[in-house]
């Protein structure tokens, strides 16, 4: 009897969560797709608009970047694109 009740509750929950499981899976898949696209374009060298938008991160990253290259034992910025010092 208790087993039957447990089965019933499990069934009920499965029915209710089915559409929601789908929505969450779809969102995750979309993120994955985007990530893959970025990786591939990076790997094959297809220009993509993301680089242009990463410029906006520049002011936010500059300090962290500076700390990082100092920690790594480089006095000057190793990348020509980012001039922090």
């Amino acid at each position, binding site marked *: 009897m208790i087993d039957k009740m447990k089965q019933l509750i499990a069934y*009920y929950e499965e029915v*209710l969560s*089915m559409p929601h499981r789908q929505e969450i899976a*779809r969102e995750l898949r979309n993120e994955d797709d985007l990530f893959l696209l970025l990786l591939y374009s990076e790997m094959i060298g297809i220009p993509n608009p993301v680089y242009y938008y990463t410029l906006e991160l520049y002011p936010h990253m500059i300090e962290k970047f500076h700390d990082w290259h100092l920690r790594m034992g480089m006095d000057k910025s190793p990348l020509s694109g980012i001039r922090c010092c």
Partner: protein
Amino acid sequence: MNAIALAAIGLFIFVIGYRFYSKFVAEKIYRLDPNYVTPAHRFKDGVDFVPTNKFVLWGHHFTSVAGAAPILGPAIAVYWGWLPAVLWVVLGTVFAAGVHDFGTLVVSVRNKGQSMGTLANKLVGQRAKILFLFIILILVLMVNAVFAWVIANLFVTFPSSVLPVFIQIPLAIWIGHAVYKKNAKMLVPSLIALAVMYLVAVLAAEYQVLQIDLVRYFGGEDGAGLFGLGAISSAFFIWIIVLMIYVYIASTLPVWKLLQPRDFINSHQLVVGLGILYLGLLFTNPEVTAPITNPDTNDVSWFPLLFITIACGAISGFHGLVSSGTSSKQLNKETDARFVGYFGAVGEGVLALISIIAVITFFPTADAFKEAYNSFGAASGGGLGNFVQGASQLATGLGIPADIAATIVSIIVVSFAATTLDTSVRLMRYIISELGTEYKVPALEKTHVATTIAVVSSAALVLIPEGPNGFGSGGYLLWPLFGTSNQLLAGINLLLISVWLKRLGRNYLITLIPMIFLMFMTLYAMIIQVFTQWAFWNESSSTLLFVFGAIILGFALWISITALSALLNKNLPKLDPNE
């Protein structure tokens, strides 16, 4: 007539229909093949295409299609007496709805799980697809308008239901946050939320302070409202505006913030509702007091209007969207389609049957029934209220006091209607965007532009028509239009199934006959309403309804012509059933 006997007869016919007729259709017409590799297996991706146990899939299918419509339609249609309504629900479910839901599922499964809109393009041609898109647009517009009006109507009639319904929003946001951030299970929190809602309902039913009764704030029914309107009209106006703002926010937020958890809380209410109604029926054992047929219906004839007043619960095109949109992608074995599709329709029929019984056992005498249902307008306006009261009378058999039961039942109906409203506003937004892409209007593709159009047009449709009870009562004039657009969609689905069967070289009469029946009723009803009620040369003319009626009439004719040409076309190539 004893109500339990009536319910038993109805259920018995459903069982017989499922046991024999659906078996015949499955074996002889759709020829289900247990070894056919369904799209769920063929395109398995863990997201859309997931092989699912047939009972779980049925549960999901049933909760998606059962809503406020199979309650409201029958509650209006008992106006012509209970026999026509019961017969149409029972026979319509067995011979039309079952075949339609089952058929859309099978056709979609046999065509890579594509939706009916895509299949229209494939089976009939490009024009059919555009037609399909426009009909769905009209249908969702009607759904938005009608259901906003339904909720406002319940808020005005049962003010104790307002607070519990609004309490649900913060509860849902909290659950969504908890589940999404902490990965908790949803079942227990959502049951707790439901319990909180019902507790608030009990309190609101007892204490007048907790009832948000706009009509009372305006000084009772004869009080002055806003802008020189009456109190009731103002209450309607305010509720509809509030609802539209809510829907706008709800349909533009990410789904798991509000919609998902709210949906989860609401899904329990179907079980609660069916439980209250059927158990209450067993315990109270009421007599049917309403007349078998109502001879005093001189204003509106039952033929053909009955067949569009009860759409959901007898046959509804909306089910085709669900079965070809999601269910077909999750069908584990093709032979499960009979259980999921046909039995899903039967589930809806069971809900419609009990709504009829709740209304026809509520009145103490046949005269009291006739007084409440003295005209079609009164039936449309008061049908839902009568259902809520009838259902709460059944609930007294379970020991629930009538006023608390009425509050809880109205919460259940509001929740159903609100879920449908959210979904249809979202759907409308997608369709407007799609039409924007189709006709190169990029502005329409923006979320907020599309949602604004959807919400504003729906609000206008509710508020503009002049109903008999003054401003804001135009909503229920739209119910027949909602029914017609729903039946048109069912008609076009049945047409697609018929064309598919014909191209396979099989007998397509079982879908063609319901289709001809539906198209005939729709055309006939629209011609009567457009030319004898809404056109400008009549007393009860209404430009807006006339325009919509004429558009729907045009679509109905268009579908009929398309159907004829598609079915008579000898040049359509034969299909291979195993492709």
